[in-house]
């Protein structure tokens, strides 16, 4: 085997601490090295030509380049090798820059280390095997999980590009949090007015299959070839028959047994309901937990009034399977719920604010509903406790956010803006009302955002107090907000009629279990991880799974929408080809010696391991072995280390290669 060695000076980046000619000289003395040279810039065109010429001239079988990190130029050198007729996987890079010249001062030590790094790479390349890229077919259909604005946008974009979409939403209607909002910052246009047409478009789009009141149960397969199992929860209404007339809802005798969660529990709803009048699809759902029929077997009022016989008490959850090529996850967020009924076990704090105890201490979304024209108060600002118009409201920002001790460390990003908006809306509606905002910093980065906040302060006379609130308590129907004005350096006390807490954005319930179902990583808060924080922000680390909206980190609407479009375009890019090329770094089982313990199956994070029957000449199964689906395998190699009989090898990093590296240490 003839090996070529190429040492790059990287200008002076490497050569200033590594004696490159000497490294090249030493490499020349190693067995198998046919040609060894150093050069100023290996990655430049002349440098690459140097490599190509040497490959031709010396008939090289493999090359080792001593240069910058393989993460930088591995592809460059592999391409150079390919154009000279060498398999791209017969190229090894020794990291002489990031791992050597840049981190050491001592020329002698750095040069020695460089030589050893080269030696390891040379030994590895001797054992390298030519590999070819893996081709997998693609199912050109997308699964979008979550029917909020991000999911809607992603679904529409993909569908408009001509690909089928399955949109799964766990609530009875799509729309998400955006449908709950009153007006949006900084333009103060009506949220539902801009959202509803989009929702209708989704509903009517021939390429979009909408599955509301449904959840993703299982995801199998791999990029281009996912198999998704979706559970459609029983609505107890026959969707095909229902006309959405709403008679059942009006006639339902259950009036005050269930809170309306769309109205953030500020109102009641009947046992049969649609979340909100503009719901898509406009088909009600019967809530088994409160419906009298399910308790006593009697009532059936809805059945009587429904002239289309759409009520179906016997309906069961159904399971649907969809084959998709890509998945866009857009599960969104929820608000940090202080000490409320379903308080997260993870976060408990701010009991001192009296949320849940005092009915007039509410969170941001509740205020949105109060301020919304379609809300429980028809847009009038009233106190939930007694319906009085509050004359003084204290808004408190960063409840939960930016608080290591009680809450979470990150900034929820949108609270500064929506608090300003809410204060502004309040001032617009209650002209004599006073709005106080307790804040830590104002973060108003965004187009027209800073101007918006200034407007709130200057035009709408919202009073900003820099400081945190220590306690809220009730006194004579007023809520005494005790805090500190850190700018003035003195304590403040506001006797507010109502308090609005801008609680933090946290991932939607069940985000972590969904992540495990799909097989994507998430951070310690439960937000899904992107493949690269800068360069691949909408891709998850699992190939073919993309992220959109606030499930990745707190985002406002325009950001969510643009991320959704980006995710959709990623899926569309994927679908531009009929087959998919993948790096061949995958594990392979030696069936002759596999003992069939299937530990590999247990450790594989991607479910790539299958059971394979090995048959003899007569077709009789004589043993069961593990088989690794090359399309699913991501090449982590955990199975190779777990395999006790060492029957699995990871192509490109096989054990022989690593042993050779160790031997050359």
């Amino acid at each position, binding site marked *: 085997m003839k090996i070529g060695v190429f040492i790059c000076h990287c200008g002076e980046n490497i050569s200033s601490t590594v004696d490159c000619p000497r490294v090249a000289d030493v490499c020349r003395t190693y067995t198998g090295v046919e040609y060894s040279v150093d050069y100023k810039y290996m990655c430049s065109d002349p440098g690459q030509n140097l490599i190509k010429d040497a490959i031709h001239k010396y008939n090289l079988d493999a090359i080792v380049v001593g240069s910058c990190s393989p993460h930088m130029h591995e592809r460059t050198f592999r391409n150079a090798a390919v154009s000279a007729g060498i398999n791209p996987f017969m190229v090894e890079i020794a990291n002489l820059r990031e791992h050597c010249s840049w981190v050491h001062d001592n020329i002698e030590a750095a040069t020695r280390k460089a030589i050893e790094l080269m030696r390891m790479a040379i030994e590895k390349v001797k054992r390298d095997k030519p590999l070819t890229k893996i081709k997998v077919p693609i199912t050109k259909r997308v699964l979008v999980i979550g029917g909020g604005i991000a999911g809607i946008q992603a679904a529409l974009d993909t569908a408009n590009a001509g690909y089928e979409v399955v949109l799964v939403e766990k609530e009875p209607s799509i729309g998400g949090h955006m449908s709950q909002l009153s007006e949006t910052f900084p333009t103060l246009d009506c949220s539902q007015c801009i959202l509803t047409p989009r929702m209708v478009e989704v509903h009517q789009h021939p390429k979009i299959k909408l599955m509301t009141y449904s959840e993703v149960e299982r995801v199998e397969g791999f990029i281009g070839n996912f198999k998704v199992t979706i559970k459609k929860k029983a609505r107890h209404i026959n969707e095909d028959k229902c006309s959405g007339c709403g008679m059942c809802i009006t006639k339902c005798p259950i009036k005050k047994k269930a809170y309306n969660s769309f109205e953030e529990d500020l109102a009641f709803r009947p046992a049969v309901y649609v979340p909100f009048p503009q719901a898509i699809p406009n088909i009600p759902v019967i809530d088994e937990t409160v419906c009298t029929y399910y308790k006593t077997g009697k009532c059936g009022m809805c059945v009587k009034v429904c002239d289309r016989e759409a009520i179906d008490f016997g309906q069961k959850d159904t399971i649907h399977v969809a084959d998709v090529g890509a998945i866009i996850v857009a599960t969104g967020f929820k608000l940090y719920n202080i000490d409320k009924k379903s308080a997260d076990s993870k976060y408990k704090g701010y009991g001192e604010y009296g949320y849940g105890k005092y009915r007039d201490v509410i969170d941001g979304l509740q205020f949105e509903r109060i301020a919304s024209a379609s809300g429980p108060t028809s847009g009038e600002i009233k106190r939930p406790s007694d319906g009085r118009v509050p004359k003084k409201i204290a808004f408190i920002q960063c409840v939960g956010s930016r608080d290591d001790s009680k809450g979470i460390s990150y900034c929820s990003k949108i609270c500064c803006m929506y608090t300003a908006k809410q204060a502004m809306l309040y001032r617009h509606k209650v002209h004599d009302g006073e709005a106080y905002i307790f804040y830590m910093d104002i973060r108003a980065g965004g187009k027209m955002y800073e101007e918006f906040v200034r407007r709130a302060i200057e035009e709408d006379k919202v009073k900003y107090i820099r400081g945190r609130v220590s306690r809220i308590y009730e006194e004579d129907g007023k809520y005494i907000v005790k805090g500190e004005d850190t700018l003035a350096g003195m304590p403040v006390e506001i006797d507010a009629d109502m308090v609005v807490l801008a609680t933090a954005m946290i991932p939607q319930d069940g985000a972590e279990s969904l992540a495990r179902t799909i097989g994507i990583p998430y951070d310690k808060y439960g937000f899904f991880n992107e493949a690269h924080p800068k360069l691949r922000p909408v891709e998850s680390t699992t190939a073919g799974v993309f992220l959109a909206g606030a499930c990745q980190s707190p985002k406002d609407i325009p950001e969510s929408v643009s991320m959704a479009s980006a995710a959709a375009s990623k899926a569309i890019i994927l679908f531009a080809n009929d087959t998919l090329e993948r790096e061949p770094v995958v594990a392979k089982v030696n069936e002759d010696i596999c003992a069939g313990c299937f530990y590999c199956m247990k450790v594989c994070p991607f479910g790539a391991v299958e059971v394979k029957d090995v048959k003899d000449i007569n077709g009789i199964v004589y043993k069961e072995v593990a088989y690794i689906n090359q399309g699913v395998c991501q090449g982590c190699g955990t199975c190779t280390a777990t395999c006790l009989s060492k029957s699995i090898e990871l192509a490109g990093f096989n054990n022989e290669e*690593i042993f050779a590296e160790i031997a050359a240490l």
Partner: protein
Amino acid sequence: MDKQNWEPKIAAFVCNWCTYTGADLAGTSRLKYPANCKIIRVMCSGSIDPVFILKAFERGADGVLVSGCHPNDCHYNAGNFHARRRWDFFHELLDFIGIEKGRLQFSWISASEGKKFADVITKVTEDIKAMGPFTAYKKMNSEFTIDFPEEPSELPEPEFQENSDKETE
């Protein structure tokens, strides 16, 4: 080999996604650390077999570092969790049969923790230096070996450059 000038030989098995990239960042940030440690790149900390560590000791390593992504940050979701379990065991085993825990060290270093990488390498190198050469294993290695007669070295002794011994890290 006199103890004064003895430099430990350390092998680091690191995952491609976090620690290797973290090491790249240490380089890009021009952080300095001792040159004793040589990195062997693998795809995931989950793919490092304990035999690799024994082999490194057999080839004269005085210490070994294993490093991967932080829990929950694994590029492959769970490789590092499996690795953690494996190392818990192996570490106890080595300790029981008399290999000090410091000879084999572990860390989680993310792609953004260039500083941590430099610190960890420095710490490991210092720890191993304090422990001295791994004579017990080296003695075992030297069974059935012989010294070959010296051949004239093919290379001239390296010339010391001006700033070469400015400071030893």
